[in-house]
């Protein structure tokens, strides 16, 4: 009998609706993403950066090539030459292909000088594939995402018409 009454009066459904109603007056969980950037954890592995020594401004990288060897995707290319005076290796070029990166963090783990680092920056979308290969300048100075015009000059000479329209 009780069960029958419960069925007639939709007790099971109303219990669910009561819960929904309770949350109508609750704090809103939504993050306002593009206007407010979320605060990511310190360890987050996002866009790569090649660190410079904050005092001298020289690169921390000693061109040991360990990061390139440990990378599962072989996407780091370290170019170096031997300084004829000091007999030390000097970094010349460094490219990092973010389109193939797994963001596994093995490169930053193995780097003896903390030169390569994956930062909390997570906005990596671009308008062309070429733009996803980061050269040394971009790795060191960061990526000026707003100024698409500058990208066009450095990264490639040929861009799609959609791109042209965007930059106006």
């Amino acid at each position, binding site marked *: 009998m009780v069960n029958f009454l419960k069925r007639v009066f939709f007790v*099971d459904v109303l219990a*669910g609706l009561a819960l929904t109603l309770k949350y109508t007056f609750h704090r809103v969980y939504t993050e306002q993403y593009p206007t407010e950037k979320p605060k990511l954890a310190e360890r*987050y592995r996002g866009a790569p950066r090649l660190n410079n020594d904050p005092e001298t401004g020289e690169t921390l990288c000693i061109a040991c090539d360990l990061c390139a060897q440990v990378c599962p995707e072989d996407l780091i290319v370290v170019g170096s030459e031997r300084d004829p005076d000091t007999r030390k290796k000097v970094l010349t070029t460094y490219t990092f292909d973010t389109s193939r990166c797994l963001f596994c963090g093995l490169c930053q783990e193995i780097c003896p000088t903390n030169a390569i680092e994956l930062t909390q920056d997570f906005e990596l979308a671009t308008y062309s594939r070429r733009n996803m290969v980061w050269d040394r300048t971009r790795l060191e100075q960061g990526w000026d995402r707003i100024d698409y015009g500058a990208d066009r000059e450095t990264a490639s000479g040929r861009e799609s018409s959609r791109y042209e329209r965007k930059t106006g």
Partner: protein
Amino acid sequence: MIEPTILDAKEIEINMGPQHPSTHGVLRVKLKIDGEKVRQAECIIGYLHRGVEKISENRNYFKCIPYYDRTDYIAAVSNGLGFILGVEKMAEIQVPERAQYIRIMMTELNRIASHLLWLATHALDIGAMTVFLYCFREREEILKLFEALFGARLTTHAFRIGGLWKDLPPGFVEAVKKFTDEFPARVDEYEQLLTKNRIWLDRTRGIGVISAAEAIEYGLSGPPLRGSGVPYDVRKLRPYGGYENFEFDVPVGKNGDTYDRYLVRIEEMLQSRRIVEQILQKLPSGPIRGKVPRVLKPAAGEYYSAVEGPRGELGYYIVSDGSTQPFRVRIRPPTFISLQVLDRLVRGHLIADVVAIIGTLDIVLGEIDR
């Protein structure tokens, strides 16, 4: 069991997927239907094949690990664990106790996150929208914990051979504690919305029934097997990585239908929480990474390492030829085997139930196609 399915005048063949929202990935199901009744279902897979097993043959043991996160991307943490435990056994690497405890804690949290995602999408497929939002709220908490400890939310690259990447960040234990304290009340909310709801009962009870004997015959594992009443859990039967130190129950169902599998998974979440609580109480201090040679060359031989992933027994069959790279890695994905029963389960049900049955098997196409 298998009836002849000749395409007669009344039967038509329709295509479900590969881009169907309820297939949770890219699964194509060819359905032979007679009116609303399904006569046969044929799964066509392979849309997400990336050749993870082959990739492993060309990478050394350290480099393989991030790729396994991408097989079952919902349960990346336990995926990595399965392979790492195997390599550690083969190379006889000792793992410090603290690392072991943290590993178990994170895999159990991953199990909760995975079941939450399953519950959310399963309910959404059947038509309960609210549960989806609530489940994602709790899942977000867990993903935030992953982000703080591992540095990524989904493809975590959680563990390293020999231990962990870094120790727990400050405030981590308190955050987990807060989560485990609040969680049972949250589960009550999901149950309030679903367990007694008549629509939910009608859509799930008696749908996709599989008996215990048949489930064993098909080689099912995880909740689909336990829902039929077989208490098979790798964590209990072949404890690995320190699970023998913790107390937990293995929930089983009775009828082997979609509703029982739902109850089993809900209970499993609470059991996982119980394990996490025990770990928080006796978390030892100490190092987090054992001694690992820089160049890892396990002795030649074969090894099978199985863990209980959220979806069932996840096995890695690793063959070493004594070099730095595995000679062969074969993954035994639990959901690849669960998917085999789809045809058996959907026969005679309505088209709308196909969605419920795909949901209850909790398949992940990344793992099926590898």
